[in-house]
C-alpha cells in the first residue's frame, strides 16, 4: 500500500484505494494525487464521504436504486427495461477546468457547423484541396439526399454530445463527436434530481451548477430554427416508439419542453408541408426534433420499407417548410476518420488551433499509417470509423493472436473503415464497488445546444463509468454505469443558478397568515366523555 493511500484513505471506505498493483495504475485519479493527497476539487466531497460507514453507503445506494426504478428511469437493452445504474459518488469538475472545456466544445461545434454547411453546399474545403474529396464521398453517413438543403437559421447541429476523456496527465481530450442524435442528457437531469434526494447534505456543502434547465435551452434552439413565417413554431419530438432504448429520454424531453411526442405515423406530408394528426384534426408542424436515424427518416429517400419515418419529410425540409433537428447527414461530421482532420477543419473555417486536443489517431486508409497500425496492433485500440456503443472496438493488449489476425484482415479489407489509437488510460473516480470505494475509469459527454446565435454547453454532462475492474469501456450497452457530474460555480460568481436572481416579492409574517383551525373539543368535554 502506498504511503499516500494509507495516510489519506479512511478506515474502511477508501481502504486500499490507490493499490499500486491495480490495472492501469498510471491513470489519472481525479480525487487523489499520488503525492499531494486529495485534490482541492474533491476535498469537501472526500471529507464528507470518509466518515461514512459502509452500511450508510449501502442504505443510500438502495434508496437511490429504488428512486430510479419508481421513476422509471431506465434504458432498454435487448428489449428489457433496465435501470440505468447510477453511482453514489459524484464526479467533480472545477470552474476553471470547466471553462476551458466549454470553450473547446463551443469552438468544435462552430467549426463542425461550418464544415457541414460547406459539405452539403459548395464543398469549398474540398475544392481548395484542404481535405481529399474521397474522405467525404466515402463516408457512410454522407447523405447525398441532403445536398442543397439549407436550414433557415443555418444550424445543423442543434444538439451535440462531445465525448471527452482525461489522459494520464489529467488533460481533457476529445474522443469522439456525436452530431446525429446524441442521447444521455435525460440521465444528466435525472441523476441530479435523484442525488439531491439521497445526498442532500453533500449539495449543501458545494456550489453545484444547475442542469435542470436543459429543456428550456433546447426548446429555445428548436424554436429559433423554425422556418421564417412560423410566428408560434410548433415543435414536436419524433421517437421511433416505446421500444427504443432511449424512449425514456424522448418522453422526458417532450414533457419538459411541453411539446407533443410523436411517432412517424402521427405525422404526414402533403405538398411538402408536415402535419400532425390530432383528435381535433390536422395541425401544421414547423420543427421536428427527431430521434430517428437518417436511414429511417423518410421512406421516399432512404429505406423504402421503413415504417418509423414520415414519407416526404426530406423534400418538405428541402422546400423549407419544416426543419429537421439534428439535420440529415450530420454523420459526416462525426465520422472517426473525419475526426482526425479536425485541426485542419478548425484552421480552415475559424483560423484557430484546437483548444481541446484529439486523442492521437492513426488513419488506416493512409498506407504509411496503416503499416504502423498493423505492426503495432497488439498495443493499439482499433475502432470502426462509424458506429457507437463500443461495438467493434478491439483492444490490442487484451486481444488473442487469433483476434488480432482477424482484425488485421478486417483492416486490410477495408482500410477506410478503421482508425487506431494508443490505449488511453481514462481517468478514475472513486466508485462504490461492494462495500468500498474503488477507482473506476470514466469518460464525459457534455451536451451543447446551438440556437444559431450562441452555443450553450450544459454545465455538467453524462459521466459514464466502467464498472468491471480495469475496464476502459464505459458504454451502458457494455455494462457501464453513470455518475452525477458536478460543475462547481466560480466562487465569486452569481452563476449559482439554483439560487440566482431576485424574488418576486418579500414575505412579511403577520397574524393573518396563520392557517385557520376547525373547532376542537375542549378538555372538560373530553374528560366528561371518558
Amino acid at each position: 500500500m502506498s504511503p499516500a493511500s494509507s495516510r489519506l484513505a479512511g478506515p474502511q471506505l477508501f481502504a486500499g484505494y490507490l493499490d499500486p498493483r491495480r490495472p492501469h495504475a498510471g491513470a489519472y485519479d481525479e480525487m487523489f494525487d499520488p503525492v499531494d493527497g486529495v485534490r482541492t476539487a474533491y476535498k469537501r466531497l472526500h471529507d464528507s464521504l470518509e466518515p461514512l460507514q459502509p452500511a450508510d453507503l449501502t442504505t443510500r445506494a438502495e434508496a437511490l436504486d429504488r428512486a430510479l426504478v419508481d421513476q422509471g428511469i431506465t434504458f432498454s437493452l435487448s428489449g428489457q427495461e433496465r435501470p440505468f445504474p447510477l453511482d453514489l459518488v459524484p464526479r467533480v469538475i472545477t470552474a476553471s477546468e470547466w471553462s476551458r472545456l466549454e470553450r473547446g466544445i463551443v469552438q468544435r461545434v462552430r467549426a463542425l457547423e461550418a464544415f457541414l454547411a460547406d459539405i452539403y453546399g459548395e464543398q469549398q474545403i474540398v475544392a481548395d484541396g484542404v481535405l481529399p474529396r474521397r474522405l467525404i464521398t466515402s463516408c457512410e453517413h454522407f447523405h447525398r439526399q441532403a445536398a442543397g438543403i439549407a436550414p433557415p437559421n443555418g444550424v445543423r447541429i442543434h444538439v451535440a454530445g462531445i465525448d471527452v476523456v482525461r489522459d494520464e496527465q489529467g488533460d481533457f481530450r476529445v474522443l469522439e463527436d456525436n452530431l446525429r442524435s446524441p442521447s444521455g442528457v435525460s440521465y444528466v437531469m435525472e441523476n441530479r434530481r435523484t442525488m439531491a434526494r439521497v445526498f442532500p447534505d453533500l449539495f449543501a456543502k458545494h456550489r453545484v451548477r444547475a442542469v435542470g434547465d436543459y429543456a428550456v435551452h433546447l426548446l429555445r434552439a428548436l424554436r429559433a430554427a423554425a422556418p421564417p413565417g412560423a410566428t408560434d413554431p410548433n415543435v414536436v419530438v419524433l421517437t421511433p416508439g416505446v421500444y427504443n432504448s432511449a424512449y425514456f429520454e424522448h418522453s422526458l424531453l417532450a414533457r419538459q419542453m411541453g411539446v407533443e411526442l410523436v411517432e412517424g405515423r402521427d405525422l404526414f406530408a402533403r405538398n411538402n408541408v408536415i402535419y400532425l394528426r390530432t383528435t381535433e384534426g390536422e395541425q401544421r408542424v414547423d420543427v421536428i426534433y427527431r430521434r430517428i436515424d437518417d436511414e429511417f427518416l423518410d421512406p421516399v429517400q432512404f429505406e423504402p420499407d421503413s415504417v418509423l419515418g414520415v414519407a416526404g419529410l426530406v423534400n418538405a425540409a428541402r422546400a423549407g417548410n419544416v426543419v429537421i433537428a439534428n439535420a440529415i447527414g450530420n454523420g459526416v461530421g462525426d465520422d472517426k476518420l473525419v475526426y482526425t482532420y479536425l485541426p485542419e477543419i478548425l484552421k480552415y473555417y475559424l483560423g484557430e488551433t484546437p483548444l481541446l486536443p484529439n486523442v492521437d489517431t492513426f488513419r488506416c486508409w493512409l498506407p504509411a499509417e496503416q503499416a504502423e497500425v498493423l505492426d503495432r496492433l497488439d498495443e493499439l485500440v482499433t475502432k470502426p470509423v462509424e458506429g457507437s456503443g463500443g461495438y467493434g472496438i478491439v483492444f490490442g493488449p487484451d486481444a488473442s493472436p487469433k483476434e488480432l489476425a482477424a482484425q488485421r484482415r478486417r483492416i486490410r479489407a477495408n482500410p477506410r473503415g478503421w482508425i487506431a489509437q494508443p490505449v488511453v488510460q481514462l481517468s478514475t473516480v472513486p466508485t462504490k464497488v461492494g462495500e468500498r470505494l474503488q477507482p473506476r475509469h470514466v469518460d464525459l459527454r457534455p451536451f451543447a445546444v446551438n440556437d444559431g446565435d450562441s452555443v450553450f454547453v450544459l454545465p455538467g454532462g453524462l459521466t459514464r463509468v466502467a464498472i468491471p475492474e480495469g475496464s476502459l469501456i464505459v458504454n451502458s450497452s457494455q455494462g457501464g454505469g453513470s455518475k452525477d457530474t458536478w460543475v462547481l460555480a466560480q466562487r465569486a460568481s452569481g452563476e449559482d443558478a439554483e439560487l440566482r436572481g431576485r424574488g418576486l416579492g418579500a414575505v412579511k409574517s403577520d397574524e393573518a397568515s396563520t392557517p385557520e383551525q376547525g373547532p376542537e373539543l375542549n378538555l372538560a368535554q373530553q374528560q366528561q366523555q371518558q
Partner: protein
Amino acid sequence: MNWRLRVVHTTGYRYATAVTQSYNEARLTPRSDDRQNLMVSRLETVPAARGYRYTDYWGTEVNAFDLHTPHTELKVVAASVVETAEQPLPAVDATWSDVRAPESVDKYAEYLEWTTYVPKHRELGAVARSLRKGRTPQETVLVVSKWVHDTLKYQRGTTGVHSSAVDAWQAGEGVCQDYAHLTLAMLRAVGIPARYVSGYLHTKPDAAVGETVVGESHAWVEAWTGDWWGFDPTNDIPIAHRHVWVATGRDYGDVSPLKGIYSGGAATAIEVTVDMTRLA
C-alpha cells in the same frame, strides 16, 4: 447542323387496388450542356398533383409530387423540346498516368467505386485489362464499348430494374441499362472514371422534319479521359443528334426516371411510350 427534337415520354403505374397515398420523384427533364440545349419542358401527372422541383446532388432536375386521393393508375407525361448536336471525340487524350494521378482518382472517386449495379468482378477485370494493352485510355473506352456491344445480345424485357452488370454478362443478354452497367464495370476495372447516363434515343437517323417516330428511353456511358465524353455501347455509336440526355450518376440507382412509394396493392408499370419528333 443541330437537330431540334420534341420528346413526349409517358410512363406510370397501374395498381392492383386503389392507392390512397403515394410519394413520387420523376427524373425526366433533359439538361443543358455544350452539346444539348433544353428549350422547354413540362411535366404533368394524372391524377393532377402539385409538383415540387429541385436539383439533386448529381445535378439532375427532380420533380417530386405526392397524391392523397384514391387512384388506381398514375400517369406521368414529360414533354420537352431540346436542341442537340454531335459530339466529336475529345481532342484531349489523357495518358494512363494522367488518369491514374492521385488528383484525378480523388476528384472522380465516386465514378471509380463499385456499386450494386456495377460490382467488382475478377474475370471481367481481366478481360478489361487485356483490352487495355497498348491502347490509350480513350481508345480503351471505344474498344471496351465495342466488346460489350459484341458480347451482349439486345433482348427487350430480359432484365428487371435490379439486375447488375455481372448478371447481364452471365446471361449474355440485356437492355441498354445492362450494356451501360457492363461498360462501366470494365472501365472502372482499368481505372477510367466512368458514369451512367440516362436519356432518350431517336430511332431514325434519316427522319424528316415534322415526322414523329417511336423513340426509346435509353442509357449510355460517359468516361473521363482528360475530359468527360460519352459513348453508346448498346449501338456502338458515338453520341450525336439522336441522343437526348437527362441525368448522370454512378449507376441506374442515382438516375432512376420514376420512383416512389405508395400504400396499396401491387403496382405494375403501364406501357411506356416515347414519342420523338424532329422539329428542325
